[in-house]
């Protein structure tokens, strides 16, 4: 040894040798790669978010016409006895005329000159949904009949597009659905304050609307459907998943059968979601006979999908609890069950919650299996209050996005992006709740 030391030439610490330089270089390279990967990831996220926000934020404002509509009793209630059955006989066509008259009157009252537009052209600037809205209001409150009530009615989708910059005077010339003169009139109405863009509550509360009425399409049914499904998924998958994990991790004997179960759970997490949809269709709808398009079926399918995620996360969290805690509990004479529920589970809780929220977030954004069980259907009726409402037809947020992107009218692009924003807000809220819960459990020490 002393010989070897003697022969080694004395090197200065100030001059790094070739080997050290190589090692440092490789470290620098690795750091650079890491930085590049993170940058790419961030850039993708920024692009995604900015595209969604750019396209979608406008859906939270909606062009509305503020019109004083005279609810003429002669038109709406010919018999004059306010009988609900008779009132219901007046169709939207009757109300359409009232609105049309109201708009004409508003135009003349404000001294706006209408160029080259027939009365029908002017009427077409109002959404076809508007008469139905007013009819709904009147049927709900027949006392309005005979009065002149100020209503906010939806403008046509093209007018809305013009206000938001999607439709321009040039595109209008080539568009059979809207004329340049109508757009000029819209400008004039806007100047007089008759036409405005308030916050679009209808987008959040209203049900979906037909292909021809993008201005009236809303997320109400989809949000309710998704919320119902998340409730059921949480109620089913968290206890089942945690119980299964505890059994597998703490109680199950180590043998072939448990090995097989473990492998299958891991594989289940990788099964394409559409397969779960087929399963749901075959088992829950065809075999069990549950209704189509119902949140209960969607939730059962999503529960099956979420379970592996929760089980894997929970088992990892249970494994991460130091064995000394179990020993300590057993050492003072706690039973196995007590040691798990008093000591292991609270320590594993943050991990379990993270897994559960990840699973739920996955389920919230899942589309494919819901298409197969019929949640893609056009549903305009709100599902009832739970628990009966779980069996009523409903839509789901991601399916609504899918639905709207399928439609021809460009106004639905904006709606779809808006729906994505709503979906993202829900995900952010869920993650925030997860962080809060985790902190609450962790702060205990």
């Amino acid at each position: 040894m002393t010989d070897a030391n003697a022969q080694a030439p004395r090197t200065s610490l100030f001059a790094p040798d070739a080997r050290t330089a190589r090692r440092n270089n490789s470290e620098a390279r690795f750091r650079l790669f890491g930085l590049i990967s993170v940058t790419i990831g961030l850039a993708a996220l920024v692009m995604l978010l900015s595209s969604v926000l750019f396209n979608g934020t406008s859906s939270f404002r909606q062009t509305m016409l503020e019109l004083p509509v005279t609810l003429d009793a002669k038109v709406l209630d010919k018999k004059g006895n306010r009988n609900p059955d008779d009132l219901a006989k007046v169709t939207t066509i009757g109300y359409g005329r009232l609105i049309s008259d109201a708009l004409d009157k508003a135009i003349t009252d404000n001294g706006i000159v209408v160029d080259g537009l027939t009365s029908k052209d002017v009427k077409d600037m109002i959404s076809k949904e508007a008469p139905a809205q007013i009819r709904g209001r009147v049927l709900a409150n027949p006392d309005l009949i005979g009065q002149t009530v100020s209503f906010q009615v939806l403008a046509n989708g093209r007018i809305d597009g013009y206000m938001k910059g999607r439709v321009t005077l040039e595109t209008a010339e080539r568009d059979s659905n809207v004329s340049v003169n109508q757009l000029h009139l819209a400008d004039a109405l806007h100047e007089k304050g008759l036409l405005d863009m308030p916050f679009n509550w209808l987008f959040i509360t209203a049900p979906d609307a037909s292909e021809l009425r993008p201005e009236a399409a809303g997320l109400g049914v989809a949000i309710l459907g998704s919320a119902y499904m998340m409730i059921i998924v949480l109620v089913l998958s968290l206890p089942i998943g945690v119980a299964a994990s505890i059994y597998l991790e703490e109680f199950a004997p180590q043998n072939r059968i448990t090995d097989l179960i473990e492998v299958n759970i891991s594989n289940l997490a990788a099964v394409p979601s559409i397969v779960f949809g087929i399963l749901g269709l075959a088992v829950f709808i065809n075999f069990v006979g549950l209704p189509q398009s119902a949140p209960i079926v969607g939730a059962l399918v999503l529960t099956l999908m979420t379970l592996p995620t929760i089980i894997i996360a929970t088992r990892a969290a249970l494994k991460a609890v130091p064995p000394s805690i179990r020993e300590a509990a057993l050492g003072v004479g706690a039973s196995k069950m007590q040691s798990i529920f008093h000591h292991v589970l609270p320590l594993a809780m943050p991990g379990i919650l993270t897994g559960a929220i990840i699973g739920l977030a996955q389920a919230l954004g899942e589309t494919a299996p819901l298409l197969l069980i019929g949640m893609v259907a056009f549903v305009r009726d709100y599902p009832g209050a739970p628990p009966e409402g779980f069996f009523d037809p409903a839509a789901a947020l991601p399916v609504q996005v899918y639905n709207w992107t399928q439609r021809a009218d460009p106004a639905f692009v904006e709606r779809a992006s808006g729906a994505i924003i709503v979906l993202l807000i829900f995900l952010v809220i869920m993650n925030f709740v997860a962080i809060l819960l985790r902190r609450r459990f962790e702060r205990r020490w």
Partner: protein
Amino acid sequence: MDDLRIVERDVNTHTNKITARGVDVFYGGSHAIKGVDVDILDNTVTAFIGPSGCGKSTFLRCLNRMNDTIDICRVKGEILLDGENIYNPKVDPVQLRAKVGMVFQKPNPFPKSIYDNVAYGPKIHGLTRNKAELDEVVETSLRKAAIWNEVKDRLQAPGTGLSGGQQQRLCIARAIATSPEVLLMDEPCSALDPIATAQVEELIDELRAQFSVVIVTHSMQQAARVSQRTAFFHLGNLVEYGETGQIFTAPKDPRTESYITGRIG
């Protein structure tokens, strides 16, 4: 070995607390403990010494059936606690462990408050009827573990926030809170500094008045300081068992002599 404080102690008047006969332990295929016979006396500190892997911890964990938690572990032979075989199928290990408490190598307080750490055992065994009784048990346990004065003002503080030595004494308090008859200690001082070690050793000597204490240790000085009887394990065999003074001054077996003089181990 001159520095060892070896005192002649009259231990033969004590009765047998634990009697082990022909105990064999297997981990899967390997034979970890080979036919061990030991009598552990009441109100006595018994030390298990021996080189690493000799089976002393394994044997200790047989005494309160902590080995039950290891799937591949099998125990043969009989271990009697006050004449009752603890491996009898009728025995519930949960009940046994309330009588045979255990302190581990690494301090392992629960991530709960100091109070809850000590109160946990009495609570799950239903030893107290009300809060006042529980408070009293917690206080006496902490006093016996010589940590009361340090923690009495912060019983609601987390047990994991204490220093290593305090944590270990808290674990001892937790173990004696269920009023066990035997206290097993698996290298209780190996993670502690000399001052904390001295405190724990002093404590062990005091605990002898109420419990039978069995301690596994790597430190022969410690065995000599705290124990009245010493068992030397080697390769799964109980080589020699006798009074501590005799083991350290006049070992009968050449292997014991080699170990205590530092030639094997």
